[in-house]
């Protein structure tokens, strides 16, 4: 069962000029104190064509995390315009907020972002080379796309260390982690067992 769940992400200062920093206020809940920090990243997708145009705007560690509900503000600088393909600069793209624990990504929040010229003249006749200083960024905050993944929350290293130290410990305390069927691969559907359809009319 996930120890951390995201309660809300508020997009601050939106819409805003292209060059202004991204500011998200993230509230999350943690069921029990975490041994290590959470790592949050903001990724700007430069172009839908390939991931090589992704820019990790910032990556931050959040911690220590005791049990309870917490909030923090994640601020990251605007993306580097020179890394964005010209054809994709104006229009719709995506910004992602991901969080990983022990290097495993367990949540991904995505927003559509619309970059366009507020100036009607420029909108009608857009310059060939996008003028980022004139571009306005509008994040579709009302429609976050959230995907959760099952991960292993326990501290496997320490558990293994214990196993090694005292192999004579009784019945070999089964340090199996929570029975994660399906191992969090999206698309894997545990539980749709044929026995449920034992009943047939």
């Amino acid at each position, binding site marked *: 069962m996930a120890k951390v769940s995201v309660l809300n992400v508020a997009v601050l200062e939106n819409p805003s000029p292209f060059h202004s920093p991204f500011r998200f206020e993230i509230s999350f809940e943690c069921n029990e104190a975490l041994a290590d920090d959470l790592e949050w990243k903001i990724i700007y997708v430069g172009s*839908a064509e390939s991931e090589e145009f992704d820019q990790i705007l910032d990556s*931050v560690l959040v911690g220590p995390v005791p049990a309870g509900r917490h909030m923090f503000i994640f601020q990251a600088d605007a993306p580097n315009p020179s890394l964005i393909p010209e054809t994709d600069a104006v229009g719709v793209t995506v910004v992602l907020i991901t969080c990983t624990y022990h290097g495993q990504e367990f949540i991904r929040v995505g927003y559509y972002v619309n970059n366009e010229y507020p100036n009607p003249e420029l909108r009608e006749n857009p310059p060939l080379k996008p003028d980022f200083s004139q571009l306005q960024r509008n994040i579709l905050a009302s429609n976050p*796309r959230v995907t959760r993944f099952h991960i*292993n929350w326990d501290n496997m290293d320490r558990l293994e260390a214990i196993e090694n130290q005292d192999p004579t410990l009784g019945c070999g305390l089964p340090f*199996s982690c929570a029975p994660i069927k399906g191992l969090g691969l*999206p698309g894997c559907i545990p539980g749709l067992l044929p026995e449920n359809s034992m009943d047939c009319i």
Partner: protein
Amino acid sequence: MKLLKPTWVNHNGKPIFSVDIHPDGTKFATGGQGQDSGKVVIWNMSPVLQEDDEKDENIPKMLCQMDNHLACVNCVRWSNSGMYLASGGDDKLIMVWKRATYIGPSTVFGSSGKLANVEQWRCVSILRSHSGDVMDVAWSPHDAWLASCSVDNTVVIWNAVKFPEILATLRGHSGLVKGLTWDPVGKYIASQADDRSLKVWRTLDWQLETSITKPFDECGGTTHVLRLSWSPDGHYLVSAHAMNNSGPTAQIIEREGWKTNMDFVGHRKAVTVVKFNPKIFKKKQKNGSSAKPSCPYCCCAVGSKDRSLSVWLTCLKRPLVVIHELFDKSIMDISWTLNGLGILVCSMDGSVAFLDFSQDELGDPLSEEEKSRIHQSTYGKSLAIMTEAQLSTAVIENPEMLKYQRRQQQQQLDQKSASSRETSSAASVAGVVNGESLEDIRKNLLKKQVETRTADGRRRITPLCIAQLDTGDFSTAFFNSIPLSGSLAGTMLSSHSNPQLLPLDSSTPNSFGASKPSTEPVATTGARPAGDTVSKDSVNATSTPAASSPSVLTTPSKIEPMKAFDSRFTERSKATPGAPALTSVTPTAMERDVHRQVVVVKEESLHSILAGSDMTVSQILLTQHGIPVMNLSDGKAYCFNPSLSTWNLVSDKQDSLAQCADFRSSLPPQDAMLCSGPLAIVQGRASTSGRQAARLFSVPHVVQQETTLAYLENQVAAALTLQSSHEYRHWLLLYARYLVNEGFEYRLREICKDLLGPVHYSTGSQWESTVVGLRKRELLKELLPVIGQNLRFQRLFTECQEQLDILRDK
């Protein structure tokens, strides 16, 4: 009678396996399938009962949705008090839920329908023990036990007061156990399984009372569930799927003698669920009729795989009503409202139906007092009216015990009133915390937010805690998360602050002096690295099967930019590894041969020990009583026991026992955990103890208990070897308290016997009246109030007290 099928109660078309109405009648829970997981949903009852409420858009229909189960949920059951909800699923887990309160936004973030959770339900306990799908759960009449049955052929009885403790595992079935029901008097629990038997178990000793097989001879395992039911007056137990002359029936079993003479006949396919109306009825008194005392009767609903529902009264030979083809698929569960006039039925086709009866149709329900009176007159004591959780002798035989018990209860009452006072004052705070509203907090957040840099230069933010995890309390705290100071430097303490242990650096004249230089050669004689030589399979950085992604991204048509991005939302970045296949770790056991050279404590000289080929002696200390203690580099500490002339291990930093011991509940509230003394110093701040305790919920409780016991016993023995009386007393009391809490009578008796010694003079007795300078009998006197807190030990308490009195009078 009215029938309603509310279409808004659904799991998006997926089957609903269980339904249960809350005891207060305001809500009900359904359990079934969800998206990639099991789903438990709590619904509002009033839109089902009143049409106006259903039409009113302001009245929420769905109260809360929980997707925590990893697989389909088979059963949801409210506790009799209504405080908890238990859910059992195909993921072998039982989750116990409690209502949580929180001030703030309560929407389920990111859900497609913008679902708002009107209520918050939090999982307070996950019960792991079954090795197969959990098919049914049932709360005992007084909510002290929770029973669960599973396809692993067992029934597990959980201690509902102290989750996740297991009281008993009932083994006896040789097939999948698919249904459970408690006797309303509390004397039995019945279970039905695919092995064509219905077994009744005694709650007194959790042994089998009887196994009934005759009515099930011709049965096959054709149903998903076999939910049986016991009548509220305790007289009848009705099974699910039974066969009589090749016709499916529901067998009626009488309590006296477990006779199987009657059954409910009529359904065309196997009976899946039987549920008795919680009320006992008596015939409606017509005005003017003679006051003929009518026999009370019960009402029972039967649901079947033939998709029809029948409702019976035990005073009639024919059913009250039969509804055919109520659903498209088999009926899975039935739940009565507590007032006895409504039924909710759910089916595998994913819908529910609600039947509303009137008193004219069913009869006059008896009140609870009348029901208890029936129980009393028929059965004597009934669990349903008993309030004590302890079922062993409830009679207190000793006035002293009574005094301790009363004191304990008073303490609990005080605590409760103190906390309730807090909550009532805090309850008035709604959205305003510490004088600031959440809005102001947000505005100031960036200023207040604590940011630091880690060692490798990365930005690190300390999140602001806006609420503590709460289940029912309103205590909200508003503070910057305090960094966990787990790693107190506990290994070596400087000598200056502590007169108790003298490091041997100072040239104090003692028996160690001369041998100091000889400790050097200990250091490096071995080549083996002191570390874990664990060879484990490397965590495969398996990225998620992103096979689908390239095809989507290759044609990023500008016309549909949204589609192109969809995969970015749902796939993990390739860099992060997927959940590693739980690695098969092959730990190489560390064989440490401890070669010891025996030390003889002579007047002046001392030969140090050679401990292992790779350890270095990091420090040598001397206690007040002249006991030498060696701290080694691998975290172990040995002390010399002069009487045995051996080195005893007193502390091991990596002792898994210490880490797994869970005796927190035995700590007295007043005493600080820190008991100063040489043992505590040597072991360092025992911050590691109990740390792993919380992680061991996958371990059977018995193992947890044993490790804790072993750890505590070690501590007592270590304190003894170090001759530290203060700590010996501390650990002994702690150990005794743990024994009392967990109910280990034998060991407790041993301790008491040892402390008491012979009451009458006898030659040849080897008992010493003192241990490490403390008088044993004084220790026993201190122990008595601790023992007095557990009613189970009142015999022991009485015995010890009498003996002490005899001694005192002598």
